[in-house]
């Protein structure tokens, strides 16, 4: 019986890393956006808003890569 422990470890590691990356970035982005909303005015608010949207965009990009993986016509 051959059990592919390497593949199992890889699947576990990738799952963990991808989840933490997406969820982590997304919640940082949401944290930034909601605090910017509270601050509302001033340059600090603008910077936080931009940073927040950047976090959301990066997590969205990782999701798009997932879409690329799902659809075999892309590769």
């Amino acid at each position: 019986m051959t059990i592919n422990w390497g593949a199992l470890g890889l699947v576990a590691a990738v799952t963990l890393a991808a989840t933490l990356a997406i969820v982590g970035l997304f919640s940082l982005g949401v944290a930034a956006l909601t605090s910017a909303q509270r601050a509302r005015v001033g340059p600090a608010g603008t910077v936080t808003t931009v940073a927040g949207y950047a976090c959301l965009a990066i997590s969205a990009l990782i999701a798009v890569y997932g879409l690329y993986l799902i659809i075999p016509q892309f590769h």
Partner: protein
Amino acid sequence: MTTTLFLVAVVIVTALFFDFTNGFHDSANAMATSVATGALKPRTAVLIAAILNLAGAFLSTEVAKTISGGIVNDAFVTPTMIFAGLVAAILWNLTTWLFGLPSSSSHALFGGLIGAVLVGAGVSGVNFTVVVSKILLPAIMAPLVAGLAAGLATYCVYRWLKSADQEPAAGWFRRAQTVSGSMIALAHGTSDGQKTMGVITLVLITAGYQDVGTGPQTWVIACAGLAIGLGTYSGGWRIMRTMGKGLVDLHSPQGFAAETTSAAAILASAHMGFGLSTTQVCSGSVIGSGAGRQLSKVRWGTARKMVYGWLLTLPAAAIFGAVAAAIALTGPAGVIIVLAALLSGTVTIVTISRRTAVTSHNVTESRDVTVQFGRTPVMAGAATTTPPTGGIPDPTPIQPIIIKQAAVPPPATDVTTTGPQS
């Protein structure tokens, strides 16, 4: 030749029926968390999942080349054994659905095939080492991996975002859930839709209706996609209630963490050569997202019953499959008997489910799925927050068959789906 044609037609219809049960069993995987947190309305959720499942069936070109991935020796497998295996898998899927238990449709199919092949071809037809390495080990690892990832992700969200459950943050997470749930549905369509296509194509080739080495015909792809899509759209609300409400009281950040974990785990396992069951991944994610917030808030009793369901799936489906094969292999009359048994079993289970119906309207109203045989509620989901709609009022005193707890309902709300808790 007419006998062959009859058998092929029966197998194709049964395979499509299995695909349908596969769909309604697994729509909970993609959408239960979104429905539970209110990110999507129940009907909208299953419509999205159904369309993406259908799309997924057409997208993927990689059709299952073997029926079972080496678990049974495909050289020994005849259309009649496939038929028996499918019947067993359908009946097991319907039974677990009745009790609101998420269980793996692939495991049910493998179990049914194993039982049928054991009867039809003997012990040499089954590769038991592959059973261990492809079913048992992944069944243990899937919920652990998903639970760990979802737990850590949830922990991080609530650590970094103290007001995660409050608007407007919760609104962001609900919107993100729409995306993550859709990813699961699409990935599911590209994998599970292919299985039925593979089965039908192999039967057509075996019977000589299709050339060896050719891919599935367009009508096969369309039928399989439609069957799984319709199944998904019908919702499987009983399972969705257990997944979305029974295990954990989910909030949208948890739902997002759970769905992202599931999507990541499904994609990683599909592309890195270690297959994990979608159902077990998704259940593990939900439990993890509850544990990551507060360990004690997970209803471990429900989780334990779910695990029992997983453990039972393979042997139970194997027994069903063995019995079905023993009857069906006697000839066309046997096939008709098994078909009749499948129909009557389906009607019976659906009738029982109607007594305590779970629909898109009441799916999130309670945590428990109750089952009522006759006038006797055998599996009592005691003290639900709302009485199950459609339940028959019970004029006679309750006479529990199995559980003592049902006679004197405990004040707690946690006597759930499937009977006695130890």
